[in-house]
């Protein structure tokens, strides 16, 4: 699965946690989940859990801690589904 496909799928995972849905239209690798998308930082774990279930993967705590941007998310997912 290429990064572009993962990005489109990731938008669906982020959707329930993003109050302003329009912000999701223009996300890039550099989009910061908390600062740019205004996602509650407590919800980052829920996003990771949802992504794990969606792709049937396990993202360990150390990898999860590095997830700050959309790009980090895609990296973590891409690495596990290789």
């Amino acid at each position: 699965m290429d990064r572009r496909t993962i990005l489109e799928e990731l938008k669906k995972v982020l959707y329930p946690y993003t109050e302003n849905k329009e912000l999701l239209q223009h996300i890039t690798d550099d989009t910061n989940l908390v600062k740019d998308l205004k996602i509650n930082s407590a919800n980052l774990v829920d996003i990771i859990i949802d992504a794990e279930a969606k792709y049937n993967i396990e993202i360990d705590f150390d990898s999860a801690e590095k997830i700050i941007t959309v790009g980090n998310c895609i990296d973590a997912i891409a690495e596990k589904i290789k």
Partner: protein
Amino acid sequence: MSRRVVITGLGVVAPNGVGVPDFLTSIRQGVSGIRYQPGYKDLHFNSQVSGIPQFNWDLLKNYVSEITFHGLQGHALGYGIMAALDAWRDAGNSIGGRSDETLWDTGCVFGSSVSECDVVKKIISRVDAGEAKKLGSRVIEQMMNSSITAYISGRLGLGNRIVATSAACATGTQAILMGYEYIQQGVARRMVVGSSEHVDPYIFGAFDSMRILSRKFNHAPEQASRPMSQSAGGFVPGSGSGALILEDLDFALSRNAKIYAELLGGACNSGGQRNGGSMTAPAAPGVIRCISDAVANAGVNPDSIDLISGHLTATAADALEIQNWCLALGRNGRNFPPVNSLKSMIGHSLSAAGSIESVAAVLQIVHQFVHPNINLEDPNPEILRQIDIGCLPTTMVEREIRTVAKANFGFGDVNACLIFSKYNQNG
């Protein structure tokens, strides 16, 4: 000068009506919210009826943000949010408000009896399967005892005292009294008060095992809850939530709020599990003292009470409760006021009983009626030895209702009594 406390908003989620208009219609007409629960037969419960609100979970999208709604679980939490925010809107306020505004003079006292076993069960299953990692961020906030107050206060931006309470079946009444006291003491000017309960199969099963539930009317659920009747054979568990907005009178007048009624005062105590009191039974001296203290605190003459909204669950304790009211008020026979039990229609909603019944008490003052006791074709002779049969209305009665006494008694021998009155601007 003593502050007066008035009620300016009402919200209710009850087995016989979700929202005040439907609930009001039901209690006027004596509509039962008790239904047969098919799953309870499979669980081998002796009693298979209960009162569960016809609750549309998706409506909560109109009460909390979409993000909060995603992952929200727990019936009692849902009921409580709806009742409290309905009451808030009913009092003429908007929800959400300015994102930077904290309402420092408004607080919340909201009670519940137990964490919802259904929700806790999911957590236990996950943890025991070694999958704690998958629980996510929303579990703690929904299993903590203060979850309902946390959701309500966060949604409304409340900045005064935020207190989650628990006093078994006296929870709702006690929460209302605490809110009243904070306003009386000048701690707060406005309080969101109430309680919420969902009796899931685990709680129901534990009561069923105590053999104190109505089990002879599984074929006729609407007849199962029979307070004060000779054929009363135990209570019917109910669920739901009641909420009231209490305000300092001056605060309410300053914002031109509509005033439903006044909360004149109340009392809360315990019989100490002595003198006939126990974990499960209220001691008569405690109950009598609680009612007497409430009447004294409210500054009313016992003879001026126009209606008693009893605890009256439909167990052997009903006759003793009537005796306690007689002794506390010094009234009996034909001199006793009308007495009714909302539980005849919705069952016993445990922690939510006091708040739902208080909403009913206020509505009876606003609309000047006494709701019927349904299923009371055969009044308990022990009760009729103390009060006249005319005190037990079985159909709705329209009459002047100025002052209502509302009491509830809970496990642990805790008692709470409130005195509501029609609002009179001259005091």
